[in-house]
């Protein structure tokens, strides 16, 4: 812990250690096998906004409380949980915090990529040792899933839909049989009580493999929506920007409500393809414009302001960051953005005028 200051990003269980400990010590409800706290406490940890034993529990997930309940209840029933949603709907965030609260360990992660192999799900070998001594427990390299099965805890599989289907299928037997066979050693590893898997999958990414019905059936599926209303999204953006910037030493003031509101408004409008009042239809961009992107946009603007500007985010900083976020490499996005500037932003009145000017100037360059 001594060098934790120099770590770029701490795992959730270390970052929120105080909160977790307070919840554990205040526990009164029955605790499921393999868990550190009761489902109700997990819920409190995630939805926050209370004080337990003098420690303020911050909200981790700001969307629907009901969805969090369903997610937790799924883990209680030892079913695997699949979180689906558009990019930036806090899937990984929720999965990390769930694992942190349930096990105090959110680090058993398999990152799904196109290059993920079956060995990364089940187990692989230390080949030098395998060749030298033959198959043995010592030569085996255990995967996070393997370790979770042994210890009866939660393994996380990120971006499961990016894995090739044979890799996805490797999970099927693990989830249905709840045991892993190692034929080389004549070994059957049964999953200890408390073992479960939280997987996340993206709905709008390119290069996504469809999940088989067989695998889907092994999961309880929770679809995470984009934030339901303006207020929630602004809350999320503001809190996350504050958390991020304090970790990054950005030397800039936090964006004021006005800037957050503008960014969130623009993102919501372009995402939905209509103005907030629903009166005007807009073209949607090719990018997803997720909440996560709004957060990184604002931290980006803070970095710009901190390093090259006066330390406060100006409309020029915002404009530069917006341009980068909205206009990806496609020509079409440029058109959408220009139309948005002229048809919507220009007519918004004086509060938006300077941002509009800054955006337009950038666009012409």
């Amino acid at each position, binding site marked *: 812990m001594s060098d934790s200051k120099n770590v770029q990003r701490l795992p959730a269980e270390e970052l929120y250690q105080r909160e977790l400990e307070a919840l554990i010590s205040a526990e009164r409800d029955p605790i499921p096998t393999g868990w550190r706290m009761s489902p109700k406490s997990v819920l409190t940890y995630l939805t926050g906004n209370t004080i337990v034993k003098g420690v303020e529990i911050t909200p981790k997930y700001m969307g629907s409380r*009901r969805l969090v*309940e369903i997610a937790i*209840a*799924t883990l*209680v*029933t030892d*079913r695997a949980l699949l979180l689906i949603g558009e990019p930036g709907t806090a899937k990984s965030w929720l999965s990390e915090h769930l694992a942190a609260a349930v096990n105090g360990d959110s680090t058993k992660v398999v990152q799904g990529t196109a290059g993920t192999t079956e060995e990364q799900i089940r187990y692989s070998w230390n080949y030098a040792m395998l060749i030298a001594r033959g198959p043995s427990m010592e030569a085996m390299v255990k995967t996070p899933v393997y370790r979770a099965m042994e210890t009866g805890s939660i393994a996380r599989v990120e971006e499961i839909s990016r894995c090739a289907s044979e890799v996805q299928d490797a999970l099927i037997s693990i989830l249905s049989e709840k045991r892993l066979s190692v034929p080389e050693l004549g070994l059957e590893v049964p999953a200890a009580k408390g073992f479960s898997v939280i997987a996340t999958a993206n709905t709008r990414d390119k290069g996504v493999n469809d999940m088989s*019905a067989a695998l*889907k059936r092994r999961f*309880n599926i929770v679809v995470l929506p984009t934030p339901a209303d303006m207020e929630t999204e602004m809350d999320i953006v503001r809190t996350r920007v504050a958390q991020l910037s304090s970790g990054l030493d950005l030397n800039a003031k936090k964006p004021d409500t006005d800037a957050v509101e503008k960014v969130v408004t623009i993102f919501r409008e372009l995402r939905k393809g209509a103005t907030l009042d629903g009166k005007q239809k807009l073209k949607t961009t090719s990018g997803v414009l997720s909440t996560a992107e709004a957060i990184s946009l604002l931290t980006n603007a803070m970095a710009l302001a901190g390093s090259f500007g006066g330390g406060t985010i100006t409309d020029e900083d915002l404009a530069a960051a917006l341009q980068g976020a909205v206009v990806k490499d496609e020509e079409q996005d440029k058109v959408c953005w220009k139309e948005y500037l002229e048809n919507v932003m220009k007519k918004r009145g004086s509060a938006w005028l300077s941002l509009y000017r800054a955006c337009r100037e950038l666009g012409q360059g």
Partner: protein
Amino acid sequence: MSGPVIFGVRHLSPAASRHLRRVLEEVRPQLVLVEGPSDLNDQMKWLCHPDTAFPVAILAYTRAAPVRTLLYPFARYSPEMEAVLWCHAHDTPCRFMDLPSSVFLGLEEERARRWAEELARQEEQEEEEEPSAEEEEGPGDEEGDAGESVYRRLEIATGEDHDTFWERTFEQIEDTADYVSACHTFGRELRELSQDSPRRWSETLVREAYMKREIQAAVDSGVPPERIVCVCGAFHVAGLEENRPMTNEEFSRLPKADSTATLMPYSYYRLSSRSGYGAGNKAPAYFELLWDCFQSEEGLESLTYRYLVRLAASHRRAGNIVSSAEVIEAARLADTLRTIRGGRFPCLADLRDAAVTAMGHGSFAELSVAAADTEIGKRVGFLPEGVSRTSVQEDFYRQLKDLRLEKYRTLEVQRLDLDLRERLNVKSKEAALIDLRRSFFLHRLRVLNIHFAALLPSRQEGANWGEYWELRWTPEAEIEVVESSLLGDTIEGAAAFALRERADNSAGVAEAAAIFRDAFLCGMPAAAAHVLTALQGLSVDAAALTEVAAAAEQLSITVRYGDLRQFDSTPVLPLLRQLYLRACLTMEEACQCDAKAAPEVTTAMEKLNLLQLSHDFLEEERWLGLMETISDRDDLNTRCSGFAMAILLERGKADEELLAREVSRRLSPGVPADLGAGWFEGLAAKNRYALIARLSLWRHLGDYIAALDDIDFRRALVFLRRAFADFAPLEKQEIAENLGEVWGVDPRQAAEALTAALTEGEQKVLDELSDFDFDDI
């Protein structure tokens, strides 16, 4: 305890029914008073009829127009129903004790009157829907801002919607005493919170005073108070305990409407969709399931799997795959969700969320059809024959049976294709004409604005003998049937009255003719004769050509298809002749019109042309002579003249030479471009293939265009463009080829020139065209 037993319920709550039954068994009352209109006690015996299937509703309505209605819906699991049925089974007197429906309706009329006055005072304010009486029921006895805020506040406090809160907190209470005290406390608290809506509140007080008065009367009549059970909304319990009864004098001051009541079948769908008030019942089929569970040995234990199995079955029926393993997982998940929120058993929200997660891949949309089926259901109530119904309802049901349309009395839309021709392969005349009689019946319903059947547009095949309907029964339709009892005692009688009334009030011949056609479609010669007389009277007055043409068209249909509908059209003929003559005489005058009115006139010309063609008793000579005159005259609207020319061409009364002469005359240089092009537009409105085939016509048009100077060309361009606007692409292509031939252009070169990108100069010219000054066009 000495006073009467007051049992507070939530309307349409199965748990309330269950506990009420226990209380009734325990108290063994000598009299039961139920919240409900006290002037409608006579409907009770029908509610208890063994053949009655719930849901049904009591419908009270005013005898005079505008009809105001008041609905009291009952499901099998309504606590009120439980009380009534218990009394029926135990030979115990049972009475409704709420304000009489006539007073409710009277209050409503009063309110409407005040509303109208208000409206008159501050003009232009959109009419708002009358709050229906149904919404005035219940422990949540108020709506509007104050009421909403109570439930909103409750929702914010509990983090769940109000129905779920109720179900979790009250519906699962096992012990009756606990239930009673919980429910009464809830009602009392709610009461505290909702006194800020003065109008609703005053009505509540009036109702409670009346109920108290009824209770007092029962006590005074000698029934021991402790043997009286009063069933009312939990909201009213405190009111009944504390307030004082209404005096005779006060009662006599209440407004009363002249009203009557009937029973009608209701539907679960309606029950769920009309639940804007606190005692809502968004999931009637689910509540029935709950009720079934209460009746069964296992009790609520079985609710989880009953619901999930039903949902899965319904989802499978819709063509989806649901494994039993998924159902089991859903059941486990529902139970875990329940432990997070507390409560003894999973409630609907838990069950549905669990099902969505485990069976619906996380998206409710996938399960929505099955969920609607399981939670709302398609149940439709049924009343046995002879139940107190209005005579129109009786007639409606008799005819449904007679015409074998009963199977269409469902909530789903069903198609009915009718073949109006007489069937020759059946024995009785009745059967031979069944489709025709069905058609009459459905048209009568249409005339009465009863939305049971909707007429679909006819198809090409069988255009004159086929009729296509979509049938769907709704409680609204039933209400409309009841409302039509103001007009007569049978469907036919009411339809006749409605037609007569409409005819007497109709302002013009076209309207009257449309009514006549309705009467014709309804197969009601007597009513048709009446309408015809009215039509005759109207036709004497000066009427516009378009209206006369429309009227003649309607009459023509009845003459042409009269036989099919067994309709004697002889009385129509003189009038048709009269209208035809009138139209011919006014036609020339009508053709002196501006460009805006011209399309209407040409439509009328087309109608009359068809009319003349289909009835040879109308003089052909007169018509053709008229067309020639119009075609020849220069001082009429040129579009009309062009159209007259088109009619002559179509009927073979104009030869190539005449056409050529006319074209060069109408399109000669010097004639203003809009006039020339207008004429062409009229000409091109008809028989296009014949026109396209005539090369000489296009040669003339080519010459004409060549002769125009720049300014006139632009003007003509606008009109010609409009004239060609509704030609099909293929036709346009053929015209282009014709013109190409006239001008000696090679098609390939032309295509190349046309598909090439516009040069800047061309673009400029086109842009200038958009700035063209259309002044008077």
